[in-house]
């Protein structure tokens, strides 16, 4: 579904992605794990189009994506829940969700919103409040729910567990796992390597702008190099 070949990206003269190769097949949950500063967020930004790539190819559902502007990529079926949540803080929770389905005006929008409220009941309770007043965990739920309102074929999740209490992290990962039943393909970027690998089918390990290991999630969890470097075991 999503294939990345030799992807490079730079901030000014400093190249931070040195040729990334990565594949995500339909209905898979794939995770990219790595330490802070490995380039995981830059990779996702290149995929969503908010960071220009300087080389390589991104193909999504058969089409080249590199020259498609960010605002047109959701229409292609690629949705991102970005780093730092990036919700519309001045607008209400419900308005945030409605804008997630900005491209649609049919009756499925209401149904999708009901689904979102079912997935995160706390959002229903706070539907008329300004999103900026939500707690960090609630904002993260809203960011994921908003990204799903765009009816993606593939969802890009950037560090959904960042800064959350362990109980909330578990809840967020449960939701990501449940996306399998909704037939949404997921590319999950995480520093929380153990949590991410536990729910993923496959994983990539990223270090300083390169993929250094790739394999089935279960193998990666068992791999001594991963255990030492990321799992602290």
């Amino acid at each position, binding site marked *: 579904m999503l294939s990345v070949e030799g992807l490079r990206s730079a901030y000014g003269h400093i190249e931070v992605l040195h040729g990334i190769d990565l594949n995500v097949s339909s209905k898979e949950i794939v995770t990219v794990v790595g330490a802070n500063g490995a380039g995981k967020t830059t990779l996702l930004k290149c995929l969503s189009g908010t960071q220009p790539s300087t080389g390589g190819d991104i193909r999504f559902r058969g089409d080249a994506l590199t020259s498609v502007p960010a605002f047109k990529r959701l229409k292609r079926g690629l949705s991102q829940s970005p780093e730092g949540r*990036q919700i*519309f803080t001045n607008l209400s929770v419900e308005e945030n969700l409605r804008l997630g389905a900005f491209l649609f005006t049919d009756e499925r929008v209401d149904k999708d919103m009901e689904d979102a409220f079912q997935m995160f009941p706390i959002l229903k309770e706070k539907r008329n409040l300004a999103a*900026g007043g939500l707690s960090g965990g609630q904002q993260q739920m809203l960011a994921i729910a908003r990204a799903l309102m765009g009816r993606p074929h593939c969802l890009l999740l950037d560090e959904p567990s960042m800064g959350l209490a362990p109980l909330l992290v578990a809840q967020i990962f449960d939701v990501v796992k449940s996306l399998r039943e909704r037939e949404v393909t997921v590319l999950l970027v995480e520093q929380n390597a153990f949590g991410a690998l536990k729910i993923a089918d496959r994983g990539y390990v990223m270090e300083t702008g390169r993929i250094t290991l790739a394999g089935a999630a279960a193998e990666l969890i068992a791999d001594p190099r991963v255990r030492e470097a990321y799992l602290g075991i």
Partner: protein
Amino acid sequence: MDALMQFIYSGLTVGAVYALVALGFTIIYNASDVVNFAQGEFVMLGGMITVFAFDAGLPLPLAALTAIVATAAIGVALNKFAIEPARGAPVVSLIIITIGASILIRGASQVIFDKQLHRLPAFSGDDPIHLLGATLLPQSLWVICGAFAIFIGLWLFFTRTLLGKAVLATANNRLAAQLVGINTGFVMTLSFALSAAIGALAGVLVTPITLVSYDVGVGLALKGFAAAMLGGMGNPKGALVGGLLLGLFEALTAGYISSQYKEAVAFVVILAVLFVMPQGLFGEKKTERV
């Protein structure tokens, strides 16, 4: 009592003009956080282009429409050639760009049109209407109704339409707006076109009362800005109420104290309000968690 009513009518008329200018500020501010100080020039252009098109033989409604469309196009050009190339610059720089643009537009109008005062015939004649013991010009009703109509239109646009929400979303978080599929470049173009068109409409409505010349924009922009700040920047309701209040303060001061003090008193009241409510009468307090 009759005098009071008379002052109130004149205050509402002037206030409605300020409100229209303030409403123009609201849209661009909502889309980009930029206070567009060329807003007063849009009002001037609306009046000037209408006058010259009318003198050239166009019927008044068509002349007005020409002016509104032309001014909207100038607004779009301002965004395209001055604001967009500076994307990513701090808001203060963008505001200074709009001040520069206003000086450019004023200078160009002086050359293209002239330095004379111009007038338009009133839309529905000059026979005063007697109402509650005082008189009101029909053109005043046009201005007041125009301000209310634009206010209702904008209020519906921002609260009831998805496109209006998209404008708010773009101002709030441009990155996230792109991720949900909003063409933020188009939203900016639309905002400038709408703002300029509303400014021009204000110019068309008010020219039969106040006349127009190349330099009326400066004062209007300042008053409109003050009205928007008083009501709470970015809120259409605030723009309307702020504008009307400012007009009323001025008219009552001019009537009961002295017309020399009308601006001083108005601005003292605004300062006092902002001292107690820095976000304006209807501005929202921003609370954000990180």
